[in-house]
């Protein structure tokens, strides 16, 4: 058993899982902060309810991101000690900054927000939420700057075979990082937006199914209420309709930003990691045509087995270079270039473990890069199109009475999640066999690269890695069930699940009059 392979599976599984929670935290957090801002400005109950409901779902998800985030920081040292030694002078700094500048802000102020309802004055209470959300957004910047350094190492000099930091601003201002940051955050907003849209759609549909809302002859909504169901009053309809439309607009804007930033990122990537992009296209030969469909056995990673079926001439050049004619290098001509520059075999060194001296395969797994790239774009387009449809479908104030569409809206929540995961899997797998990718472009620094095979912990056996892989995967799986269970329960309960005071029949004031109200909320 190869410890490197087990370690990679572990890193992949824990990171993809962590990055299901994170974009929702980033995206939904922003939306909740906006909702509460509108509430503070208008004092309208609709916005208070929206803030409380979406805020509750935000917190259920937030904690999972926090809990699984600790693993992320620890496993560099635990499973990838050679990596940590190699990059330590550069990579640790953004991680430490992330904790010190961002995580504290996020955690301390979120605690103040959760327990601060009714204790902090309204302005201050809104302020602490913004501080927490800004904290999350700053944390995203630092971790992406760290990751981007692995994609495009800058700001260092090689001394004694290891990169030494000479310019922190180059690392933080890395063009790869700036592009990836805005790309990732747009993707995160898309996640939060689809989440809001899907759930709001479900509630509007539920109200119609329960006969609370009806439509008149012109298809316009006639809002009703059901006093026996907690929270199902007229205001409730507005909460969901507004949420849906905010979600839809946010999804459309997010998609526009994702496309724009993705294009910038791709153009950088064609220069910085040509092999990754060639492999994303399953482009064996140099050319200018974009593959719409390529069949054959991509998993064989052998160009002989790959057959492009539908191609659009010129489009690849446009994506890579901004014109329609310039050729983009394919995998086959690139391999000898890499071999010439970085060698045919892994260094015959203890640090390379069982791979020492073996032949290097410079070609990423084509099936993963090709389909990862297409899933990312496909699901992104899909959710933007769905959002546009949702805006049109709700122009008369409610959703169609179709159970199918309601199910689709809920399942549609997964689309931007899949797009996000696919994008990350693509960009991380596309960097292989390197963990720190060398850069052929002018801004690249000679000698700064590290093979994944030489990055794992020499002292950790494959058995230990397998133990932690299985343990964490099982734990994460079980926790996913609990998170979904709670989310579904709170979603079904509607706004009243986050505001028990809306349940007039069962609600009792919680604090007796002879005690100070020191806890407006309690776990």
């Amino acid at each position, binding site marked *: 058993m190869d410890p490197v392979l087990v370690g990679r599976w572990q890193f992949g599984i824990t990171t993809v899982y962590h990055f299901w929670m994170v974009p929702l935290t980033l995206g939904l957090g922003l939306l909740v902060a906006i909702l509460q801002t509108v509430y503070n400005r208008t004092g309208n109950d609709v916005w208070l309810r929206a803030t409380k409901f979406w805020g509750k779902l935000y917190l259920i998800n937030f904690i999972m991101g926090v809990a699984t985030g600790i693993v992320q920081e620890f496993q560099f*040292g635990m499973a990838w000690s050679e990596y940590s030694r190699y990059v330590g002078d550069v990579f640790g700094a953004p991680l430490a900054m992330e904790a010190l500048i961002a995580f504290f802000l996020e955690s301390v102020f*979120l605690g103040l927000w959760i327990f601060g309802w009714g204790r902090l004055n309204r302005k201050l209470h809104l302020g602490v939420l913004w501080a927490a959300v800004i904290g999350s957004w700053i944390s995203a910047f630092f971790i992406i700057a760290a990751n981007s350094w692995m994609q495009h190492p800058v700001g260092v000099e090689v001394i004694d075979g290891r990169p030494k930091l000479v310019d922190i601003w180059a690392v933080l201002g890395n063009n790869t990082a700036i592009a990836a940051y805005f790309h990732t955050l747009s993707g995160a907003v898309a996640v939060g937006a689809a989440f809001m849209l899907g759930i709001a759609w479900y509630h509007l549909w539920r109200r119609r199914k329960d006969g609370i809302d009806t439509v008149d002859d012109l298809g316009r909504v006639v809002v009703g209420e059901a006093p026996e169901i907690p929270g199902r009053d007229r205001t409730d309809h507005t909460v969901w309709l507004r949420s849906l439309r905010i979600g839809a607009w946010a999804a459309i804007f997010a998609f526009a930003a994702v496309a724009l930033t993705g294009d910038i990122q791709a153009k950088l990537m064609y220069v910085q990691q040509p092999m990754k992009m060639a492999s994303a296209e399953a482009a064996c030969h140099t050319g200018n045509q974009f593959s719409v469909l390529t069949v054959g056995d991509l998993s064989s990673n052998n160009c002989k087995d790959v057959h492009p079926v539908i191609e659009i001439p010129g489009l690849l050049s446009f994506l890579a270079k901004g014109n329609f004619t310039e050729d983009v290098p394919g995998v086959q001509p690139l391999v000898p270039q890499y071999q010439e520059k970085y060698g045919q075999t892994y260094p015959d060194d203890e640090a390379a473990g069982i791979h020492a001296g073996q032949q290097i395969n410079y070609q990423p797994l084509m099936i993963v890069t090709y389909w990862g790239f297409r899933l990312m774009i496909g699901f992104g387009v899909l959710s933007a199109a769905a959002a546009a449809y949702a805006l049109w479908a709700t122009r008369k104030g409610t959703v169609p009475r179709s159970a199918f569409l309601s199910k689709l809206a809920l399942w549609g929540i997964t689309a931007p999640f899949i797009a996000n995961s696919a994008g990350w899997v693509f960009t991380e797998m596309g960097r292989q066999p390197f963990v720190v990718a060398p850069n052929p472009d002018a801004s690249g620094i000679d000698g700064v690269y590290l093979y994944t095979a030489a990055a794992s912990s020499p002292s950790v056996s494959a058995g230990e890695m397998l133990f932690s892989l299985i343990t964490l995967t099982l734990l994460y799986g079980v926790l996913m069930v609990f998170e979904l269970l709670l989310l579904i329960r709170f979603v079904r309960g509607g706004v009243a699940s986050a505001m028990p005071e809306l349940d007039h029949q069962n609600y009792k004031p919680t604090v007796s009059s002879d005690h100070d109200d020191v806890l407006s909320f*309690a776990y």
Partner: protein
Amino acid sequence: MSDALPTIWFILIAVLWLGYLFLEGFDLGVGTLLKGFAKNEQERRLLINTIGPVWDGNEVWLLTAGGATFAAFPLWYASLFSALYLPLTLALVALILRAIAIEYRGKGHTDRWRAGWTWCMSAGSAVAAFCVGAMLALTTTGMPLNERGDNVGGPFAWVNAYAIIGGLGVLGFCILHGLLFLTLKTDGDVRHRAARIAGSWGPLLLLPLVAWAVIIVVRSGHWWGWALLLIAAGAAAYSWIAIRGGREKAAFLAESGFLVAGVAAIFSSVYPVVMPSTLDPQFSLTVGGASSSAYTLTVMLIVAIVFVPLVILYQSWSYRVFAQRLSVEHIPAAHAIPKAVRSAAHS
């Protein structure tokens, strides 16, 4: 200046661990006490809510200590974390379960749900405290590191008496710290019971931590180690007398003084070694040998000088906002999702 940078960072790392043990210490202690100490559901909820608004910010001290070790001493970070692969895996599982339990426990409404998360929180807190203690102890007593800094003792090289003493040391400290924290944060029966237990079991709870410090100081033999140890012992004794005399604040402060002096005794005695090799002293990781470049240390020092005080400032403010004592009467009725909504939504 640049020669002093690794030493400054060694002190800063010690301060970060100190901050972690001081703040998260009572979170882990209170969490552990959920089993055994809390008598009923009301008391369990009271305990959770004493740390509810602040625990997450406290935990960031761990992430900062880890991140700062990576940034300032990458070779230390790499050797320590990879050598302790299994106990750290265990610590991660414990920390994850503890965190999720705090948020999810109150969101379900069956006894089974609550009892399950109570276990997760109590055991998670205790195991996390133990593992962190074992890790800190082993970085002071050493592991079988080869010339590359890699553990060659196998997956269980960490299982030794020092790890157990250090693990119990931090666990015992956390429990006492949690008890004293409860005397300050709660009122009524819980407050008095916490004071009574701290008054009778305090010395025993601190004993393993003292043993660890004594081992380190005896090994190094520096006079300042003994001096700090003496101060720590004095503070611990004073804390014990104070809690028996009903002076809760003094007891908490003195016990925190014990922590500061104890950690200072340990870290200053091992200096300049950050992680000894038990195979050959030549392979030991030192402050100078394991550190980052002067440039990186300078950059991080500037960041630390600006942001550590800022963090302390707003984190202190959050404690002031939630300064009131809580008692079981303050805990609102369980925040149930109204049944009618659910059944209506199901229909």
